[in-house]
């Protein structure tokens, strides 16, 4: 996923809501990759990241490798 993307997979401009979902996903993904957080944060952030991935993926905002977390 490119954080700078302005369109969805169909080439439509992203709406403000879609942009926010993608932004949230990007931030959670960065956070979930950290290794210095306590388990309580890492595990729960990963779960949250996965759910945001689902929303962005289903809305055709991106198509990112599903196995990767």
């Amino acid at each position, binding site marked *: 996923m490119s954080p700078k993307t302005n369109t969805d*997979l*169909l080439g439509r401009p992203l709406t403000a809501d879609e942009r926010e979902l993608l932004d949230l996903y990007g931030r959670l993904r960065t956070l979930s990759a950290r290794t210095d957080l306590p388990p309580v944060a890492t595990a729960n952030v*990963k*779960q949250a990241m*996965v*759910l945001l*991935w*689902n929303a962005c*993926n*289903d*809305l*055709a905002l991106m*198509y990112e*490798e*599903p*196995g*990767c*977390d």
Partner: protein
Amino acid sequence: MSATESPYWNPKTETLPKDQLRALQLVKLQRLVARAYEQSPFHRRLYDKACVRPEQVKTLDDIRRLPFMTREDWMANQAEKPLFGDLITRPESDAIRYHLTSGTSGRQPLRVLDGRKDWSWITDMWCYGFWGFGIRPTDKVFFAFSYGSFIGFWGAHYCTEKLGCLTLASGNMTTEQRVKQIVEMGVTVVCATPTYALRMGQTAEKMGIDLRKDGKVRRVIVSGEPAGSIPAVKKMIEEMWGGKCGDTAGMTEIGTIMIFECDHQPGGPHIIEDHFIEEVLDPDTGNPVPYGERGERVVTSFGRGFIPLIRYRTKDLVCKVPHTRCTCGRTGDVYEGGILGRVDDMKLIRGTNVYPRAVEAVVREHHEVEEFQIVITRVDNVQDEITVKVELKPDQQDCWPRLHAQLGKDLADAHEGLRFNVELCKQGELPRFELKAKRLQDLRPQY
């Protein structure tokens, strides 16, 4: 419109005009094929052998350049490289779940692994279906399901949690306990196989419970058997429960459902086309069949990360009709009559796969048997029965009481406990064959 008023789980993609849906599928297909080629040695070998490269997929029709993936290849790959073969794209340590296909005699079950995102996706596919059939956060959903290594309704359970429904798991309950809880808790949605939905209904009658009056069930969601799309079966279920019955279908190889009936019920389930490409092909030639003709389902799934599933031959028999058959507004096409059966000789009996050859292998262990026949029937439109008719050698007639019991046990042991009826025939009663024998009679109605 508030979220709960939307008739669609995902309005944006469920109602996409067909050309845009195709464009979306192409983007996903290209990335999926590239990923499979890079990360799954199994797929790389498959494509190298067929002299095809990911960048040759330029249009959706180019999917036909890609070789098929078969269950046999998958099983052989697992056997060569235990436990999972080399088609998984991630290290085993990334997985959070392990499931198995229902095994058959003489065949290893397929072992599948999934990661976090895979399970979230699996859950979401059920959400498309449950939401589309009218399930909402205010519902109380009961799962008549054993929660074991078979994937079954696992994803549906997480789906109703995600939707915010009250979710009732009934793993080890008896049928009577289940019926009691459904009534006591005011359950509004029941999920089961069609056979078991009927059995619960019959049990309720014996318990003196009128589910239509005493219960609050408004939806019965069935899965796991082709009977779920047979109108006569649905009618029986609806009359027993007093709620609408909707069909879904999936497979362990996919991990979830790929088709579901919407609230409009146009005579078959919709395909979730933003997540799957479902081709319908002539099983012999591999060429596409037009709308309205029966063929074999060949599925490509965009959702699973661990296991790329591209042009997987399901051997399911289906008949695709255009989405315009339904008035709900979804643009996913419809499988008229759901899954119609199997294109090969595998028989699905009450959820267990039975191969005539495997039955023969068991029967032939008993030398007293001279000839046999397998007869499959459907009782009351729902319950499938399998009977092995046996003719003994003339000098072995005395062994019948012992053999009768032993054969029944051996057949069940080889088929996950499936009950077989075993019957004795008179001398010369069963047909004899030259060259290819036809020992199987499937007398179930064909829909």
